[in-house]
């Protein structure tokens, strides 16, 4: 591991983009811009932008609060007003932030929503979350779009039609009303063509860990890479620029035979290649990552980085059919795939990325991800003979991150992988 940490140009650019976005958000009301709260998976950011409104993603506020060690207090405050210890901590973190004045992770007030746009893709708790927010922001309009689950392992024409009808009948009219602007399909098409370009680029980026050594960590660094595309930049020229730059840098690393960049510099020896299922922990993100890179473990593919869309399975926005394509996008997020599909996807990753092991990071908060993970893990172990590991913590509740527990389990897992490698050599 080299200790020299230099910031890549793409990192600097991303930082600038976020700062600009945040400034726009915090000054939204002065600029007369309307604010739409919505969720990351299956988000309709392009449509929000087509009405010149600004999206806010409560789960991003929660994860940022987690990274900045603010979530623990927020969660406790939500519990004090009746939110059970047992429920999703993203919701509690958000509610806690709100009752503390809605001061966001960067210390500035997040404007109240002018519209709650509920496209609860892949998670039922999203719906419950917004039911609570609606009461906490009395009078706020709600636009609801029910995203059918891929229960039969496919998206049918009927499912698309159902969603398009909801867009036309409820979502778009509400957006027109809130923004005071007419729906402009040409504008949406232009935005979607940028979205398509970013999707093409990020797909190439997440293909690069097929190289040995992998030039990136597709999980710990991957969560930074998916930031712009998932949170409001998809469909903007800035995002295209960012992803082009990022891809160039990664290609350069491949040419030089370099491994991933970690917070402590470049990883010099790739010992283990892993596929990870489940979101990361945010409250101890750095320590968590360190447990991997210190052992020479690189995550070559992960399901979490696909919560905003599975571009590797071919989905791209289609400007020529804007609403149909928004509908398909909503249904194309990882947790909206059924369990057999999720197993097939993970199998593909394990095989195509030549993984040495498969690891589940199970999240206490998240039934959408976690319920069924043990069955998936067993199936993958049986079908592929791949070594599997299991660790658990939470997203933003620091009470559920046990460093020693995770460390012990990971050490046993890495020992198993080492033995397996020795045997196969």
């Amino acid at each position, binding site marked *: 591991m080299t200790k020299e940490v230099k910031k890549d140009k793409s990192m600097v650019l991303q930082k600038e983009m976020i700062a600009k976005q945040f400034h726009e958000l915090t000054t939204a009301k002065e600029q007369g811009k309307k604010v739409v709260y919505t969720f990351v998976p299956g988000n309709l950011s392009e449509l929000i932008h087509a009405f010149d409104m600004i999206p806010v993603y409560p789960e991003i506020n929660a994860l940022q609060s987690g990274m900045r060690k603010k979530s623990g207090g927020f969660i406790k405050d939500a519990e004090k*007003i009746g*939110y059970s210890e047992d429920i999703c901590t993203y919701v509690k973190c958000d509610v806690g932030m709100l009752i503390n004045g809605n001061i966001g992770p960067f210390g500035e007030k997040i404007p109240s929503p002018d519209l709650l746009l509920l496209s609860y893709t892949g998670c*039922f708790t999203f719906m*419950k979350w917004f039911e609570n927010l*609606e009461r906490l922001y009395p009078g706020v309009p709600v636009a609801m779009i029910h995203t059918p689950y891929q229960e039969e392992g496919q998206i049918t024409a009927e499912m698309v039609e159902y969603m398009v009808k909801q867009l036309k009948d409820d979502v778009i009219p509400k957006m027109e009303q809130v923004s005071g602007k007419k729906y402009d399909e040409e504008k949406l098409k232009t935005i979607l063509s940028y979205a398509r370009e970013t999707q093409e680029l990020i797909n190439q980026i997440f293909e690069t860990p097929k190289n040995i050594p992998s030039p990136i960590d597709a999980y710990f660094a991957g969560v930074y890479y998916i930031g712009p595309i998932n949170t409001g930049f998809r469909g903007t020229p800035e995002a295209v620029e960012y992803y082009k730059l990022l891809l160039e840098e990664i290609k350069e690393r491949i040419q030089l035979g370099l491994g991933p960049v970690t917070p402590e510099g470049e990883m010099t020896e790739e010992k283990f290649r892993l596929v990870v299922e489940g979101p990361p922990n945010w409250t101890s993100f750095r320590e968590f990552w360190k447990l991997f890179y210190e052992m020479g473990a690189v995550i070559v593919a992960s399901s979490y980085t696909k919560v905003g869309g599975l571009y590797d399975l071919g989905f791209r926005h289609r400007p020529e059919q804007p609403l149909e394509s928004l509908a398909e996008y909503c249904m194309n997020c990882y947790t909206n795939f059924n369990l057999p599909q999720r197993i097939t996807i993970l199998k593909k990753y394990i095989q195509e990325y030549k993984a040495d092991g498969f690891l589940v990071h199970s999240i206490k908060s998240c039934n959408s991800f976690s319920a069924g993970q043990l069955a998936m893990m067993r199936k993958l172990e049986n079908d592929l003979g791949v070594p599997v590991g299991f660790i*658990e913590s939470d997203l933003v509740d620091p009470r559920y991150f046990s460093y020693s527990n995770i460390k012990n389990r990971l050490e046993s897992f890495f020992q198993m992988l080492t033995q397996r490698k020795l045997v196969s050599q």
Partner: protein
Amino acid sequence: MEKLEKIVEECKEVVCDMNFQEAKQWKSEGKQRILVGYLPIYFPREMVWAANGLAVGIMGAGDYKQVIKGDAYYQSYICHLPRGIIDLALDGHFDGFDGFVFPSICDVIRNLSGIFQVEKIGHFSKYLDYPQNFKKEIGGEFYRKELDSILNKIFNINQVKTTKETLNNAIKLYNTNRRYLRLIYDIREKYPWRLSAYELYVIIRAGMVMPVDKHNQMLEIVVNEINKERGTPMDNIRVIIWGAFCEQMPLNLIKSIEMAGCYVIDDDFLIGSRWTTADIDESSEDPIGALVDAYLNHSTFSSSIYDVDNPKEKRLVQLAKQRKADGIIFASPSFCDPALLDTPICQKYCDKEGIKFISFQYSENVGQFKVIKEQVGAFSDSIKLWEETST
């Protein structure tokens, strides 16, 4: 033994039978009969009956079966219901079931449908995606396709096509069933001592695993019996229990709540049986359309529905007032996001409307009720005391 006691006894046996003998017996008595298991909360059972089948409620293994295999499927922070169900499936309790329906009430049930697919349990596992859009031409059309898809799956197994007549006949039978249940709740509103919450619970739950015509006969007797005086009025408070719609309370916990000084005058334990609040058109030219209309326009309120225009907390408070409840007990299964995320909403509104409440969490296999019993007892005492001082 009195008629009613006999029915309660019989129903209790049926409820505790995790081999579903009653349903399996029914299947064996006719050709092309099938069994379709369904999970909480609601499923239009009429369709299955019309297709020569019986929809069998799978409400979890409760404390009737020691769960061993199921625990290997679920992390400790997931509710108990799915582990019991997996255990039942893997131990062959559902042998003879043809398919399973998983209504869209939460991600645990949703993903359980996937585990059934992976483990190849039954001929089909259908995740029934309920629309959250209540317009006939949008949500209604989607829902209709969902129902058609279930009928097709059944047809593929037993080759029975439903007709207008068979569907209308089934709707009629289930209308009768719901009418009796509404009547029983109305009688209990006035005379709660005539049928305990525990007795009512086993009677309703038995109806989820036995043929509807047989259950209707039982309910008729129950209604007749409780139209007469039975039991002795006690100095109990009147409560509604809310939040227990999916993973069920152990029978002894229901008894404990009653023993702690409560008449449970309404609840959502088995709300699927009373989901439709009005009769469904039983002479329609389009009976599936009638079922769709019932879902869109006559559903009760529940954690699984986000009806923006008809908030559930107002409906709950309205119910409490209508039933003249002294208070509400919010009882939710541990780790149940849908129930637990509704609780703060409803409690806040109860506060505003001056309705007293307590809340606790439970699990279907919990064996110790001491703490809950004390909590409920204190609640009952405090309400009585408050009534005394305010009169």
